[in-house]
């Protein structure tokens, strides 16, 4: 390759890497599906489904705008919540496992789903955490010191 071509190619690649830093890559596929199908302007809500799911690239900046996050693990079989780390400005997190009507369907079978909850440790705006019908292995209160924690 000639000197000039490689030089400009190198610059182009550095810009590409820079741009890629702004894209959100999800470790858990189901979490991604949840975000695509329920993300609103500033809420991800299990109660409100979008007309059409978001296609294409999701930017990290749009995830940072979320103030409210709720996911029903009955609809989205999430195995790992590491991707929660993208929602740096969220104020309320609700993670639950519930059926379509009032019947009790037991505890969520994925035992280690909350293992990576420590990602929320440095969330400045986090005020409420609600975990329903999930296996709790760690001390949630210590992970989120400033928030009110409800466990059921």
């Amino acid at each position, binding site marked *: *390759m*000639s*000197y000039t071509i*490689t*030089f400009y*190619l*190198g610059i182009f*690649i*550095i810009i*590409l*890497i820079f741009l*890629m830093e702004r*894209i*959100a*890559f*999800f*470790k858990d*596929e189901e979490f*991604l599906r949840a975000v695509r199908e329920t993300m609103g302007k500033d809420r991800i809500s299990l109660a409100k489904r979008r007309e059409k799911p978001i296609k294409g*690239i*999701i930017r990290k900046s749009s995830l940072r705008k979320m103030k409210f996050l709720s996911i029903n693990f009955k609809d989205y079989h999430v195995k790992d919540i590491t991707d929660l780390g993208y929602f740096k400005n969220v104020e309320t997190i609700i993670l639950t496992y519930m059926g379509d009507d009032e019947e009790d369907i037991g505890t969520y079978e994925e035992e280690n789903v909350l293992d990576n909850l420590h990602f929320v440790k440095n969330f400045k705006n986090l005020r409420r955490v609600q975990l329903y019908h999930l296996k709790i292995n760690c001390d949630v209160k210590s992970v989120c010191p400033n928030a009110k924690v409800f466990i059921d």
Partner: protein
Amino acid sequence: MKLKYRNRIYIALILILVVCIINVLTGMYELTSSDYNVTANQIIWNGARYNRDENEYKRIDNLENIVEIPKDCDVKDIWAVASYYAKDDVECDARLKELEKIYDTEGKKATVENILSQELGNNKKTVMEYLIVDGILISSLREDEKLLNTVIEYCFDRDYGFFGYKRYIDIGNKLYRKNEKLEEIIKAFEILSKYTIDRAIAIPEPKDEDEGAVETGYYHGMIQLFQTFSSMSYFADDLLLERSYPHGDNRKYIVRATIKEDYDIVLSYKKYKSFINLGNISIYGKYKNLNMIVQYTGFGYLDYRDIEENIAFRSIAIRKVYDKLFEIDIMSDHFGLRSTYVLIYDTDMNTIEGFSYGIYPGFILFNETNIDTPEAIRNFNTNFSKGGYFGEFSNELEYDENNPLTLENFGERMDEIWDMNKKTLEVLGKDYNISMEMIVMDLSGEEPLKRKE
């Protein structure tokens, strides 16, 4: 997007980035080494090669065991020269007769190929054979370039590397290096130069102007071809790759020779340099597409157009080339020299990759009407010795009577003499009304210069 895609894309991008960085860094290395490239690290004077060693030029060839031929033997007729080698030697005689037959029946190309396709020997017969190759080359120089290309093809061998394995990982083993036949051709040119110059010294003048023109044509052809082959050996000895010429005849060449309208010889080739090695295996290297221009031999006036047309004036280093050519111009003018220069440049980047020159003495036999070199040297020595025109200032101008300028040492001392000329003009120019050409004029009839108070 899924996380695994990000990781794969990152790895690919970073790999390409690393290759780019290495490429750019090695490219910068090439660009900054240009100062070395504008110094003539090998020159030719009077049929011998000199290599630069610190600030001096040292002769690298010594002709041994050459057959003496009579001074009146016409060197232009190579068969006459060869016959002196065949005298008293049965093997040489048989070979000479064989080659003469091939020449008469099949022509120049067949003769040359017959010699070059055989294994290289190490005796008088080999010397005779290669003298014949060179002689035929000189006589056909103005005809076409096919013979030149044929000879060049035999000068390079495939480099199979260590144990014949793929030594150069990125391009396989399609590399060529110069071989011993090229050195034999160069040696033969040196012998021919010696014969030519010995004859020119012995013969006082040409019979008529036409003969002088023929002699000059031969002399200039010999100078230009010798310069071509020795520069090829010095600069293009590294690894070369084959290159095809889509705008030419679509054949593949290792080194392609073309002769321009103004009689310059241009060699085109592709040079490979390895940058990252693991023992004997080269992992990464760069190629350059290079052209080598060997100027048509001139009576001192050197054509600068090739530099202006082909070199990008990016670095100040090009001044060095201009200064050197100016020096050769003036010195050729004063001392009656014949000169040619070689310029190697990268055809993609238009940077100088090498420079060299060849200077030869001029003789009356070659229509030197001004002054011939031996006479100029004599006048120079007389003028600066005690009792000469500039004798009184010889200490100041650093001329040593015990170390006079001679035809043998002129090439090594040319830069020194040039500095002396400039100094003479500087010290004596204004007050004594001196011009530069006076240093070689016959001033023995004049009163020596007296120092003004």
